[in-house]
Structure formats: C-alpha cells, structure tokens
C-alpha cells in the first residue's frame, strides 16, 4: 500500500493530536485510525525544545478504554546533547496515552544508542513517565564492548 504525501501528513497530524492532546482533552479522544505516526516528548525547561523521547509506529488503532493497538512500535530516548540513548521496538503493543504505559505479551527488543547493548525478551511493560521497562520472560542481554572482560563476574 502506497501513501501520498497528503495522506501521510493527515495521518501524522491525527497521530500527533492523538498522542499529544489526550491528556488535556481526555473527553475528545479521536476514534480514527492513524498510520506512520510520531509523537515527541520534550525535556523540562529550560530544555523544552529538546526531544527527550520519540514514540513512533506504523499503525495505531483505537481500543476500548482509550487504549491504542500499535503496530511496529519504536521508542527512542535522547540525551540533552541529542544523542540516542535507547531504542525500544516491538511488533505490537497496547499503549495507554493517558498514563504513558505500553505493554505486550509479544517480542520486544532494546538497543543502546551506541549499539553495544542489545536486549531481547518476550512480554514487556514500558512506563513512559519513569522510563522504566520490565521484561517478563526469556530475557537475553548482549553486552559488546572491546576491552570489557566480564570475567570479573
């Protein structure tokens, strides 16, 4: 399926409204369907122009209770210098925009910005406000750093 620029803009606009306006407009939740969306969370002042976290997905479908069914979720967190700290991705998850919680029983992956730490697992709970991630099953972490000998442990 191909999308023209106008469609993509509309979708992004709808998604942006979906993710940024919900807390203040909880009674006017859109019930539409969004594709290729991105939502940014910014640092507190005086760094309010810098992106702290970016949540994106290929598709978002509304679920009962204000939840969203997101396909191909990707969450990126950034440092104040703009460097990517962590990238979290999942083929599917349910996201609650009201409290910033995403969860899924399916596969997920986490990678550090420098690519040296890679985490995979099954089933997760992501809390946006505290930047915490719980992986509930089959967690595998790979730490790849030249010179680091985990022989210490």
């Amino acid at each position, binding site marked *: 399926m191909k999308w023209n620029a106008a469609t993509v803009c509309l979708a992004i606009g709808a998604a942006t409204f979906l993710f940024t306006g919900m807390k203040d407009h909880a009674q006017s939740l859109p019930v539409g369907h969004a594709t290729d969306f991105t939502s940014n969370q910014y640092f507190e002042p005086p760094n309010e122009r810098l992106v702290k976290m970016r949540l994106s997905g290929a598709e978002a479908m509304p679920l009962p209770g204000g939840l969203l069914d997101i396909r191909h979720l990707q969450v990126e967190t950034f440092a104040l210098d703009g460097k990517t700290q962590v990238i979290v991705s999942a083929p599917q998850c349910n996201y609650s925009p009201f409290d910033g919680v995403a969860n899924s029983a399916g596969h997920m992956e986490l990678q550090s910005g420098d690519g040296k730490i890679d985490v995979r697992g099954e089933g997760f709970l992501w809390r946006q406000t505290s930047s915490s991630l719980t992986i509930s099953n089959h967690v595998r972490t790979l730490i790849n750093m030249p010179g680091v000998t985990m022989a210490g*442990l």
Partner: protein
Amino acid sequence: MKHIFFLMMLGFSCLLSAQTNAPVAPPATAPVAKESTKTKPPTEIDSDSADFDLNAHQAVYRNHVVVTDPKVRLTCEWMLVTLPQGGEHLSHVLAATNVVVDFTNAQGEKYHVTAAQAVYDYKVVNTVTNETVTFTGNPVVDTTNSTIYSEPMVWDRGRNHFVFTEPKMISKDTGTNGPAQKLF
C-alpha cells in the same frame, strides 16, 4: 595429623610464592592468571525476567540468571548491573543468592567459586585501575588442588590474585576428608 598440616602449609606457601605482585596487606593471596583486554565476543546475560531503569542506567535481572563469557560463567538468582554508557567500562555488578562462578585461568586451572553474594567493582583512581570481585556469604573457592574458605574473599583482578581473610584450606593432594584446617 602433623604431616597433613605440613603438606597443607607447603601447598599454600607454594601459592604464595607464585605471586608476582607485591602484596598490600592481605593475610593470604593466591595468583590468578591475568586476562587480556583485547576485543572479545559479547557477554551474554540470560534471565527469566528483568527490570531496566533507563534514567538510572540500571538493570535488575531476576530468576535463573546466567552470565556467559568466553572465560567465565556465573549463575545466580538476582543481579543488579549498572549499565555502561558511551563506551565506558562496566563499573558495578551485584550478584546475589546462590552465586556460582566458574572460570579457567591461562594455565588451564579451573576455579569454582560459590557465595551468597558477589560484587564487581571497576574504578580508575589517579590512573590506577582497581578491579575487584568481593565474595561474601560463606564464599568457597574450589580449585584443582584445594578448597579454600574465606570470609570475605576478594578476587583482585588488578593485582591478579585472590585475597583471603583467615582462610581455611583443604588440600586435595592429601586425600583427607577431615574437617577444614585453620592455617593462620
């Protein structure tokens, strides 16, 4: 009995004499082959579940934790890792509950360490690297030739040896099954 004790003392003194680094003030030490710091395959951590605090850069691994390294294997039930950032060295790991560490030194000697808790710390102070693993909670190191009890037991990786406190050792060469003998 005196003969057994003499053999044990002899064996332990051999360990001490093989040490190539100047002792600081440890009651007893035993050498461990130093590892190279060249590029190596990734370290793998497996567990049933895990919690990541991305603000604090910490990970807590729970249940059936297994750390697999080309030279070391660690198992425990709970492990806190301070995640390195920007290519930094791994600085702090706390492993707890049924900690088991197995490794083989450069001479092919196998070490099997058990303890309730192990703490790995890596610090560089005034260009001096301090890299230690401190075992507590009835730590025991089992080697090819002996079994050594010490509380605590510190694996000083910077100086490349074990540091024991009031160690008790059973030499396997004697073939004795008797109780541990206090050496100091």
